[in-house]
């Protein structure tokens, strides 16, 4: 018995691993381990060093991703690690976005931690861990691997959300997020199990073959449909689609502001990319079953997100609802992509990914300004706190105005390029009604951004509380605004890249 076991293990051959192709994950992993190890083994470093390490890690991973992208050229996509991970432009683009987001958020976090007097390596370690989870999610080619990534990401987020020891809301938000997130993970996992039951595999490509009827496996229709539904619920929770969005405002408001920025960027990119990949690769034969669900979710998300955003009085809650509304826009892209067979359907994926990149930068920039205004204690996030910002810090207010106008989709900003891309994708597959609905929701949402601008420019300061902009957060905001304007005026830079995005 024992001998047989040993014999069996000794003949076990691990999959061939192309180390360089997973180097972005390895870089992030190395950075995360380094920060956590160093943090526990060395005396406290000077302020800012941990953030620097985090930024360097993220940039290294981003550069490696870029190198891989160039190497890939026009090659067809492949899989890595025995089919567990996909290696394609889609995954690389999402990975790049995540790395950029982590680098920017690290700059914001440095300012936040310094201000709150708690500069430690754990936060950065967790952020990098979240990024690893995100990268695994966007490249997962197997539902179980996807789940691993999802949990890595989510667990890091729960901890990060609850990481502020001085604010009780932070702990409350962390707990809420944890419990509801646990529910969602359970739904997701149940969905995976049912799909496995229906197809006998968790690999996305094999699954697609089974469902398309190419492989003679008795596939069970009931299990399949229930599996799709549960999977969609899990995803819908993670990307906060209406009606699975109720946790978002509470968690966004309660979490430390830089962490909110991280959730709005990395969390959205990872979950959306995974959602798009799973549905487009594993379930294309069932499009007629899931497209109506996407359509309804998109409409609900757009309208409810925008309308509820307008009536908030706390800026972090406003932006939480606005992020929901943006999620609706991205879903419109997925809806367009789902018209498989249409010559222009490919525009859906690339526009959704372009939107995610642009939105990530925007949301980090916006929350960076919110973090600055929130000040010591991270509490001044009501609309009133923004009053008179234009008089106190005109340059900061101008930067925020650019970011808000971009979120509203005003031309010559990246936000317009993003929206235009989505509308273009929707119109090209003749989803006119959805396109109009999305644009009208954007108009409702514009009111919210106008409210913040009114507070900043057209009201007198409520108090003399100084607004301090440190170097690192100033750099983050400058980079975000510059990206917003450059992409807005010269969209070719991004379009040429996102044109190439495919599975």
């Amino acid at each position, binding site marked *: 018995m024992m001998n047989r076991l040993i014999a069996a293990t000794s003949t076990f051959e691990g999959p061939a691993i192309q180390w360089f192709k997973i180097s972005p994950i390895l870089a992030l992993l190395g950075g995360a381990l380094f920060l956590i190890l160093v943090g526990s083994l060395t005396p406290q470093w000077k302020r800012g060093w941990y953030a620097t390490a985090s930024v360097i890690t993220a940039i290294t991973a981003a550069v490696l991703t870029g190198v891989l992208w160039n190497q890939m050229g026009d090659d067809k996509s492949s899989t890595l690690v025995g089919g567990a991970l996909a290696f394609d432009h889609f995954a690389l683009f999402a990975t790049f976005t995540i790395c950029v987001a982590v680098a920017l958020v690290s700059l914001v976090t440095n300012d936040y931690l310094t201000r709150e007097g708690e500069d430690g390596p754990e936060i950065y370690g967790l952020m990098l861990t979240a990024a690893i989870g995100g990268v695994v999610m966007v490249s997962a080619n197997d539902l179980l691997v996807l789940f691993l990534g999802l949990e890595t990401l989510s667990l890091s987020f729960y901890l990060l959300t609850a990481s502020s020891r001085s604010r009780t809301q932070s702990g409350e938000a962390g707990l809420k997020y944890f419990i509801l997130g646990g529910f969602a993970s359970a739904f997701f996992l149940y969905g995976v199990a049912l799909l496995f039951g229906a197809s006998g595999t968790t690999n996305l490509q094999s699954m697609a073959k089974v469902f398309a009827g190419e492989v003679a496996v008795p596939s069970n229709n009931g299990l399949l449909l229930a599996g799709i539904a549960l999977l969609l619920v899990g995803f819908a929770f993670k990307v906060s689609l209406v009606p699975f969005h109720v946790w978002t405002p509470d968690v966004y408001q309660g979490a430390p502001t830089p962490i909110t920025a991280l959730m709005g960027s990395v969390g959205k990119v990872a979950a959306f990319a995974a959602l798009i990949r799973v549905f487009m690769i594993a379930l294309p034969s069932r499009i007629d079953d899931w497209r109506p669900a996407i359509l309804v979710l998109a409409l609900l998300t757009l309208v409810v997100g925008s309308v509820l955003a307008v009536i908030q009085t706390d800026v972090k809650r406003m932006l939480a609802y606005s992020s929901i509304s943006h999620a609706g826009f991205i879903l419109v892209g997925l809806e367009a992509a789902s018209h498989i067979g249409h010559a*222009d359907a490919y525009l859906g994926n690339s526009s959704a990914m372009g939107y995610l990149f642009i939105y990530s930068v925007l949301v980090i920039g916006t929350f960076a300004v919110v973090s600055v205004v929130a000040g010591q204690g991270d509490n001044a996030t009501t609309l009133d706190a923004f009053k008179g910002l234009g008089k106190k810090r005109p340059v900061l207010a101008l930067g925020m105005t650019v970011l808000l*106008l971009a979120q509203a989709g*005003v*031309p*010559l900003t990246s936000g*317009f390029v993003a929206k*235009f891309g989505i*509308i*273009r994708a929707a*119109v*090209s597959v003749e989803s*006119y009604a959805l*396109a*109009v609905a999305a*644009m*009208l929701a*954007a*108009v409702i949402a*514009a*009111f919210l951004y*106008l409210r913040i601008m*009114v507070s900043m*420019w*057209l009201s007198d300061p409520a108090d003399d509380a100084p607004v301090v902009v440190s170097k690192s957060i100033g750099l983050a905001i400058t980079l975000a605004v510059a990206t917003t304007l450059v992409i807005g005026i010269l*969209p*070719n830079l991004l*379009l*040429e890249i996102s*044109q190439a995005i495919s599975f």
Partner: protein
Amino acid sequence: MFASAEMTTSSFPILTMLVLVPLLGAVLVSLLNKKHGEWVKLAALVSSIATGAMSVWMLVKFPTGAAGFEFVSKHSWISEWGISWHLGVDGISLFMVVLTGVLFPLVIVGIDPHHDHKSYLAWMLLLEAGVMGSFLSLDLFLFFVFFEIVLVPMYFLIGGWGYEKRVYAATKFFLYTMAGSAFMLVGIVATAFLARRDIGVLTFDLVEIAEKANFATGTGRWLFAAFMIAFAVKVPLFPLHTWLPDAHTQAPTGGSVILAGVLLKMGTYGMLRFGVYLFPQAAIWAKPVLLTLAVIGILYGAIAATMQKDLKRLVAYSSVAHLGFIVLGTFAMTTQAITGGVMQMVNHGVSTGALFLLVGMIYERRHTRQIAELGGIQAVAPIFAGFFMIVMLSSIGLPGLNGFVGEFLVLIGSFETARWWVVVATIGVILAALYLLWAYQRVFHGEPSDDNKSFPEITLREGLLLSVFVAAIVFTGVYPKPMLDRIEPSVKALIEHVEASK
């Protein structure tokens, strides 16, 4: 007639400069230090006057009798999407460009915003760049960019320098227009994609689409409607006009003058350039509805104006009526009517711009716009009253002044193709005389009350400013030929384009 073969390319990219100079001026103004107030003003002045001078130079160089687009400049911008920086000017846009170029320096020189000059001037210049771009764009995407970008400076101008309910008015203005644009954006993208079938490549080029694309009847109507909603909000056409009285009343004087002078014309201009030119069949089909809305606007605007207690609101409602005439002319679809409409765009810009200027001056002096609190001003400020009288008569459409020429051409030109609408619209002409003369009587005639006794006479600066407007009013009224000669060929070409599509 619009074919590209006729295009002339000038070595000096004057149209691009018309957009870039105010834009750079805005950037420069916002970079200068607030402490050097004179430098800020000088920068704003130089860039706006330079733009004005270039627009006049362009007018002089514009070949009379040419129907196609002149001074064209075309560069690829977003090649992935088939979008180019394509600017050009023809008889329809020519005078709007000149009006924009001349009006802005006048407003910048003549009207004092009272506080925070730097931001005010920066927004003004950005607004000028946006308006210029809207009138010059020959690319659907580019046009949309300018059309939308105009909202931002106008929003801040109303919100930052306006009166009591400025934030409400500014927000309403922004959201109304943006909601209209939402339809247009989808319309623009759909137009480009559907036109691709006929053209072969994806392009947003206006001329290319208009000349080569053939939309199915139903499709064309939907697309036309999508564009029209945006323009109808902008004009504004009844029943989408409700943002206008608020925006006008709350805007600072400079904002009102620009709003009435050129911003509203972006709607009527858009109807001609993008509605009728791109979708002639749909325009013919929608004619009865649009004519009816235009006539309702004329009557409703006039009746509402009669009822106003606030002088500025009265002028705002008179705009609704006047713009109705322009839309009437546009969709009557005869050369005369459209020429009259284009002319009326300019005339309304001059006379209503001047009216808002005068109302602003009254407010400066009396800090009220309520007609009931004014009265007898003619006795204490006769020159001021004289200016008001001339401008008002031009707005009524007195023969010999500019308003008459445009209105008359619209009515004459529309009579054949839209007889009954014209009959009703003519009542509007009478009503215009009623509300304006009645307002004049209440504000200027009678014995001045104690508050009005010290009403200061016009200052030299104000007088010079108004003289420019009055000169334009009288010159156009007496000798409209040079203007008509330049507008008409392009309008004729447009009509031929419409006829050919039947």
